[in-house]
């Protein structure tokens, strides 16, 4: 199944080409981070379809739109 993924700030380089990737279910958000190569300890917020998702054990669904954020604190 295909999902949209965008990684922000320092994690930007982990965004898949074209912002989309094909994954095989079942895949949790934690599993997705691992697949992308994003160190989980560097992630602070994950948004799924525009909503903050604190349960990273949640399974990814087809067409999900996922945003991944590291700590951002510059002023």
């Amino acid at each position, binding site marked *: 199944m295909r999902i949209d993924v965008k990684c922000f700030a320092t994690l930007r380089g982990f965004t898949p080409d074209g912002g989309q990737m094909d994954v095989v279910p079942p895949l949790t958000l934690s599993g997705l981070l691992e697949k992308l190569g994003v160190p989980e300890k560097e992630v602070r*917020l994950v948004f799924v379809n525009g909503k903050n998702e604190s349960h990273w054990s949640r399974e990814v669904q087809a067409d999900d739109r996922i945003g991944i954020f590291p700590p951002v604190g510059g002023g």
Partner: protein
Amino acid sequence: MNTSFQDTDVSRYMKNQESITLEEQEMLWDAHVLVAGAGGLGGFLIEMLARAGIGRLTIVDGDCFELSNLNRQILALETTLGRSKAEIAGERVRAINNRIQCSLVPEFLSEETFFAHCTDVHLVADALGGLASHLALFHACRQAGLPLVTGSVAGWTGIAATVLPGSPGPELLWQGQDGEDAEKVLGSLAPVAALVASVQCTEIMRFLTGKQPALAGRLLVADLASMVFDVLEL
């Protein structure tokens, strides 16, 4: 200093009137905003809040301008290097409108300074840098029951959110040591700081004129590298 709205203010704010009614303009004049930080975000924000006609500003920043601020901080000039950010911000506000009541606090914000200066404040603007500073201000506003309009930046990424008492905030973004902050790696840029400050100013104006802030419990995310903008539910 901060006398009531005057006849000359009608001319001063003439270009606002199709978007901000005279009654709303008076509400802004009667408002008191504490701006924490007068650097990248704070400089732009203070400029816009003064021009918007906020009648009372408390500006807190213990830092002085240095060479590395010149890339983005509107108040950082070759002529202001080494000088207090709070003092320079005060000079700028007075140059825009000498009737704005401006309290300057050239100290780094601590829990003590915050509670000493938040009396009569209607809203707090978070223009601080550093994960620990954002988090401390977030908790202090929660404790004081004050609304907070926050912003932060890292490279081409900027975020902004409004945290009303009891509503969710983006505090998870500020968990960790300051060294883990994406800004420490990516730095910060003038267009991102100006954009986030603009969003913060707009939210502040909405709140102070009795409107529901558009970002209450939500996070505006801007990635100027890819021109992606999104509003996410916290």
